[in-house]
């Protein structure tokens, strides 16, 4: 197991946590435990999908992103708006007002991530037509899904398409173009992604498929929403002209990527539990006739990210309307061929399995542990109530074997034990009286 210190955007705000079991139940990698009345996130297991942020009624689960003030740390700044940002504002006739508003709140330049998506679309489109690659190829766009595969479906890692995320491609081009135009040093330019989710923030700090991210930081969409709102529809003398096609823009919602890279034979699935069910099918080789699989951890795709403000269905509809009025040239024509070699578009580091589910490095020991788990499980009630602090009776049995919990943490076992003890005490008391 790699011992790298893992950065996580998703964190716990201890002061708000009530120690309830809601987040336990919804974590797709069983990464949360409640101990001593507070939730704990197991670093090695967390994939930063943000399901717990969504489910926590007490707002005790938070996503750490960069403060907008972080842009003052650079002489020059570029905003990289994720296309899902456009879904946050209703009644838009164009994306220009959003690009202008970003400049008005302090960014020197704006570069649409949708443009990066155009280039990535062309790269994946090309990749899908290469012979000898596994089927289906799996999108690498959603970092939470890639990390889910590392943890729960390591055998599907070879299926992940090795093309970088649109955010990364956009950052490389944005920085280079800016430096050329303004004659400045690359390190003097701060490139900030406007993110709908914590998974992207984590992907900047601990990149997937590449040594180092080209992005300097991420600012949460919901944080910047208020500021942007007040600047939208301010009259600008020369509005910023959007350059992405409708295809790149469409990446904001589920199936947008698929329709850009392989409309004829792909499957797009949104919502992490749904993604898990389909990955099971792919693992069983029941979807080998499929060319491309697009999985988005969030319901509706990126527009449903935990750091968005607008209802995801409304946002998806807004995106659809914007796509309708956008340039309809397909990226294989709109993106110049020179672009495909000018920047590194592919992974330079392999995606490795995260073997956190493994009970022990030694298989014989792992087998003994598995046997113990099955034995403990026989004595557990099977209510999966979460009162012990583990999400299910099975994970509780695992936790006992891993020495993270004791049998008496199960309130049902404890109650039964107490009943027996009480009975024994009564019997004891009666013997004395005779």
């Amino acid at each position, binding site marked *: 197991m790699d011992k790298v210190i893992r950065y996580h955007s998703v964190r716990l705000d201890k002061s708000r946590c009530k120690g309830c079991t809601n987040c336990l139940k919804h974590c797709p990698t069983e990464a949360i435990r409640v101990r001593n009345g507070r939730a704990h996130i197991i670093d090695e297991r967390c994939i930063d999908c943000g399901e717990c942020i969504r489910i926590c009624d007490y707002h005790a689960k938070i996503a750490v992103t960069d403060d907008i003030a972080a842009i003052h740390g650079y002489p020059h700044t570029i905003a990289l708006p994720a296309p899902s940002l456009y879904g946050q504002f209703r009644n838009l006739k164009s994306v220009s007002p959003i690009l202008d508003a970003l400049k008005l709140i302090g960014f020197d330049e704006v570069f649409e991530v949708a443009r990066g998506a155009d280039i990535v679309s062309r790269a994946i489109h090309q990749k899908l037509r290469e012979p000898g690659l596994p089927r289906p190829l799996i999108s690498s766009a959603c970092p939470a899904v890639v990390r889910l595969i590392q943890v729960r479906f*390591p055998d599907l890692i070879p299926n992940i398409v090795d093309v970088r995320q649109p955010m990364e491609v956009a950052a490389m081009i944005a920085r280079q173009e800016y430096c050329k135009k303004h004659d400045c040093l690359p390190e003097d330019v701060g490139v900030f992604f406007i993110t709908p989710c914590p998974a992207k923030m984590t992907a900047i700090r601990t990149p997937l498929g590449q040594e180092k991210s080209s992005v300097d930081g991420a600012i949460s969409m919901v944080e910047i929403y208020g500021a942007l709102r007040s600047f939208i529809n301010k009259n600008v003398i020369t509005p910023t002209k959007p350059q992405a096609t409708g295809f790149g823009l469409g990446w904001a919602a589920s199936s947008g990527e698929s329709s850009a890279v392989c409309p004829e034979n792909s499957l797009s699935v949104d919502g992490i539990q749904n993604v898990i069910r389909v990955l*099971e099918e792919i693992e069983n080789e029941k979807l080998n006739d499929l060319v491309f699989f697009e999985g988005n951890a969030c319901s509706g795709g990126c527009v449903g990210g935990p750091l968005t403000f607008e209802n995801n269905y409304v946002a998806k509809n807004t995106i659809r309307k914007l796509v309708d009025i956008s340039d309809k040239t397909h990226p294989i024509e709109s993106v110049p061929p020179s672009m495909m070699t000018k920047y590194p578009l592919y992974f330079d580091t392999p995606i490795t399995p995260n073997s956190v589910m493994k*009970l022990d490095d030694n*298989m014989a020991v792992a087998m003994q542990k598995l*046997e113990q788990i099955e034995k403990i499980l026989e004595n557990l009630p099977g209510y999966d109530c979460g009162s012990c602090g583990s999400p299910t009776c099975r994970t509780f049995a695992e936790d006992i074997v891993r020495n993270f919990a004791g049998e008496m943490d199960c309130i049902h076992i404890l109650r039964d034990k107490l009943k027996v003890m009480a009975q024994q005490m009564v019997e004891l008391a009666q013997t004395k009286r005779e």
Partner: protein
Amino acid sequence: MSAMIHAVYPVKADDYTFAGEASTDIKRKLKQLGVDSKVLRRVSVASYEVELNLVIHSDGGELIMDVDEGGITLISKDVGPGIPDIQMAMREGYSTADEEARSLGFGAGMGLPNMKRNADDFSIESEVGKGTCITMRFNLA
């Protein structure tokens, strides 16, 4: 062998509600044991295939998994109806699946050949009226 995992999964005929649960549990166990992902993939495919075969074609039976340090053994035993012509059944594309199964996307006639392709050792015995027994072995390098 110092340690051994033995698991038995009863599989009912025509029960699509539970179909696939045995192979899901097998996969989970093997991941916990840290079985190499390439071997895991082959076991996943074969176990799902053989479990669905029990549901679709047999009169019910059981799936047994044994794991030792050398590898994984999957045994599928059913109580009938038995395969009259094994050679024919092993042919790719040959299927006796009924309408119900086909409408669900099964019965492409790839089941047995697929199992054989994925296992390191594959054997099948069958007697009409008695039942079928399939044994598959997957070696751990």
